[in-house]
């Protein structure tokens, strides 16, 4: 049933909506395409299904979101309302007719017919359409920016989902470790070799580990739902699989100054510029409108006392008090505000770029350190612990503690790779011209894995 509804909706969109959105799509898509992203489709794109059939990467998630996110399509549809010819139309002529007759006497009624046309407003039409075109351009930049934001939200959501699944695997591994310790304690207790206290400690550890797994499961489910929202997925489209969280890139990201590129590419800044230009045009139109808005010419004919008369008229408002100055001042004030916002936004872009670059460098180094130093060291500890356990120099509980230390290091590795992925995605987003986004910040810094507990009182 839902498939049928979807097909119907697609048909309707294709038949009715899509042709009317073509100018908007043609205007919005070039900047998106120039950034390596798929153009927004006129209708849900089957390519999204192909992407969803493969293990989903952050970049694939971004593409899926652009191809099928409903909210983004709505923003495109709303652009149609801003077409200049719908904002500013040619003024209509004004027709006036009157008929009057004296209440006494037999004189024929007087007739009055006048036609006038507001030539002032017609003369201002191009100025006002120019302002409307700038406003429309600003809206298009904002929609393109919204597309980048949609893509970035998709990347971030998928990264969190990948990390949540990896954390869940780590927690399950941790649970297996404490379950193993509990199995040993249970058996030792069965044959009278350990105390109720030692067994209780192991049981408590298992109970806590189960809780941690349950929390990790909940986080993984929640993160998955966040992906559905970010990508606009529902129904059968929610059966996707996430690709594993990416490893550490081989090359360190360049530390050269690319803030300028981020600023030049910023769609939000271009939107603000266009909006400011629109306000400037509005101010100009308002100033001219002080004289011209009420300028009208017309012809008038009237029959008075049986005689037809023909005359012409010109109407003009004297801009003594208003004169459009208030409206113009408002537009200028908005324009000034927009220019100040643009300056502030540029500062934000530069700062966000530096922040993302620094976070990426730091997170990459942490991830490298975990991959090349901490985890191998913990693996060596576990290997040597096994040897020592074989030699009966340490207990099986100490061996399992070494295993938990390794698991904790792998958990820290997940956090570090998530931080790295988020920073990398943010940097990419900013360089493409996306605006700094709240909520895409790093999670808490990965904690150095604490050394596991001792042998729990068995030895």
């Amino acid at each position: 049933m839902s498939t049928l509804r979807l097909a119907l909706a697609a048909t309707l969109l294709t038949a009715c909506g899509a042709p009317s959105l073509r100018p908007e799509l043609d205007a919005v898509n070039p900047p998106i395409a120039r950034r390596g992203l798929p153009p927004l489709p006129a209708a849900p794109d089957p390519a999204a299904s192909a992407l969803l059939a493969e293990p989903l990467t952050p970049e694939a998630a971004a593409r899926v979101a652009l191809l099928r996110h409903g909210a983004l399509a709505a923003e495109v549809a709303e652009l149609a309302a801003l077409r200049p010819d719908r904002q500013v139309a040619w003024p209509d002529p004004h027709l006036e007719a009157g008929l009057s007759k004296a209440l006494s006497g037999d004189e024929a009624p007087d007739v009055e017919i006048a036609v006038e046309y507001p030539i002032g407003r017609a003369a201002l039409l191009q100025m006002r359409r120019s302002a409307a075109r700038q406003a429309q351009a600003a809206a298009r930049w904002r929609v393109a920016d919204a597309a980048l934001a949609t893509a970035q939200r998709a990347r971030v959501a998928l990264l969190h989902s990948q990390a949540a699944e990896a954390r869940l695997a780590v927690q399950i591994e941790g649970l297996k470790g404490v379950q193993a310790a509990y199995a040993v304690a249970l058996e030792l207790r069965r044959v009278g070799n350990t105390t109720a206290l030692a067994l209780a400690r192991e049981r408590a550890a298992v109970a806590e580990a189960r809780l941690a797994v349950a929390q990790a499961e909940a986080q993984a489910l929640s993160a998955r739902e966040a992906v559905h929202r970010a990508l606009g997925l529902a129904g059968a489209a929610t059966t996707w699989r996430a690709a594993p969280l990416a490893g550490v890139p081989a090359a360190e990201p360049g530390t050269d100054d690319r803030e300028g590129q981020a600023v030049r590419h910023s769609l939000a800044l271009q939107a603000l510029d266009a909006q400011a230009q629109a306000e400037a045009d509005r101010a100009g139109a308002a100033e001219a409108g002080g004289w011209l808005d009420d300028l009208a010419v017309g012809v008038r004919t009237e029959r008075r006392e049986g005689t037809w008369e023909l005359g012409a008229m010109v109407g003009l408002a004297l801009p003594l008090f208003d004169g459009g100055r208030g409206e113009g001042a408002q537009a200028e004030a908005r324009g000034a505000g927009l220019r100040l916002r643009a300056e502030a936004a540029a500062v934000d872009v530069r700062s966000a770029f530096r922040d993302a670059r620094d976070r990426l460098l730091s997170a990459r180094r942490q991830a490298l350190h975990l991959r090349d130093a901490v985890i191998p060291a913990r693996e060596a500890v576990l290997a040597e612990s096994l040897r020592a356990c074989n030699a009966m120099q340490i207990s099986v509980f100490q061996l399992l503690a070494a295993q938990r230390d390794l698991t904790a290091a792998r958990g820290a590795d997940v956090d570090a790779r998530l931080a790295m992925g988020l920073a990398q995605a943010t940097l990419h987003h900013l360089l493409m011209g996306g605006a700094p986004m709240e909520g895409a910040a790093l999670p808490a810094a990965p904690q150095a894995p604490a050394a596991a507990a001792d042998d729990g009182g068995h030895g």
Partner: protein
Amino acid sequence: MNRRDFMHLGALAGGTLVAGRALGEGLADAPPPDPARVLPGTGGQVAVHTPNGSTLPWRIVDGVKVGHLVAMPVQHTFTAGLEAEVWGYNGQCHGPTIEAVEGDRVRLYVTNRLPEPTTVHWHGVILPNGMDGVAGLNQRAIPPGETFCYEFPLVKPGTFMYHPHADEMTQMALGLVGMFIIHPRRPTGPRVQRDFALMTHEWKLQPGARRPDPGAMSDFNLLTFNARAYPGTEPLVVRRGDRVRLRFGNLSAMDHHPIHLHGHAFELTATDGGDVPRGARYPETTVLVPVGATRVVEFIADMPGDWAMHCHMTHHVMTQMGHDGPVLIGADPARIDPRVQAVVPGYMTMGHDGMGAMGEMAMPFPENSQPMRASPGPFGPIDMGGMFTLLKVRDAGTEGDAWYRHPNGTVAERADPARLEADGVDPDVAFPKA
């Protein structure tokens, strides 16, 4: 790999390794019991043999026996696969046995190649006070790089020792000890045909480490005769009927050692204080060798065979025994191993049937360690190590025999069911619950 596979592999690989080690050390190819060397001018007394050790050579200068001890770091092998950085004298650990005769005048040069000052105390030797070797009390310590001279007459025979009396804890713990034997000019009592010197010692050497812990006060995990742990100990090979003298010294940090000899009874004939009067001697099979003392026992080796001799403190015959694990005896590995192996592949529960099988397993151990390893014997693995050696009593003509060849019917074996029945022994006998 299941437990059975693991054990099988262990039996193959471990057996091969251990056999190779034993052959390498000459254990299974024990030297024939050549007649002991007789010391000239001592009434026919035989020279002391120090298994795994040596005797300090003398130069005679103007009638004075001149010897030279060099205290120095040494790379030492306790047994194959277990090496350590220790301190010793003249490139060996422990130091060479000093052997002289009552009435000799000895001049002993001591060169210090250690990183800290040292001295030598001639433990039990009667000598002038300034030669006693206590740093600060009797002399200034020998600085690194310097050579001091000790000279004194040997006025009293006996079994003595030597060791530093400067930073004693560190220097002795790292192996700087040796035996000092002074034969009587005119021996009394029955003449011995074999005379052995055995210094007992204890160390703490973590499996995988290469330097003993000189600060250890407990948990010693490596116990040695002449700084060797079985199977690295050289056996004591004697002829049947020999009168054998065993001279034990103990410069361990903390522990006395009850040395037990199988198959024979002996008498304590002397301590480092002097001879035990004949009337005060009584038969024993175990002699307690206290810390800082020597004990001399004598016996007639009249029982042929390969006899164990070892410290009877059971932990002292378990090389690098671990003590931190839980008690696993009685546990069922099937309830444990699958769970642990799920997170630590390669884990295998051990000790659930006792510790005896430990030595046969060929699992990976820490490098440079021999924890509780067994060595091959003629009937299977010998699971003792540490302060353990063999007394090989041989008849003439059988000297080259590696392991003792038992006469027929003299080795314990599986009981004959007919014999069991005839003797009224039921292996399945039940006992009331206590």
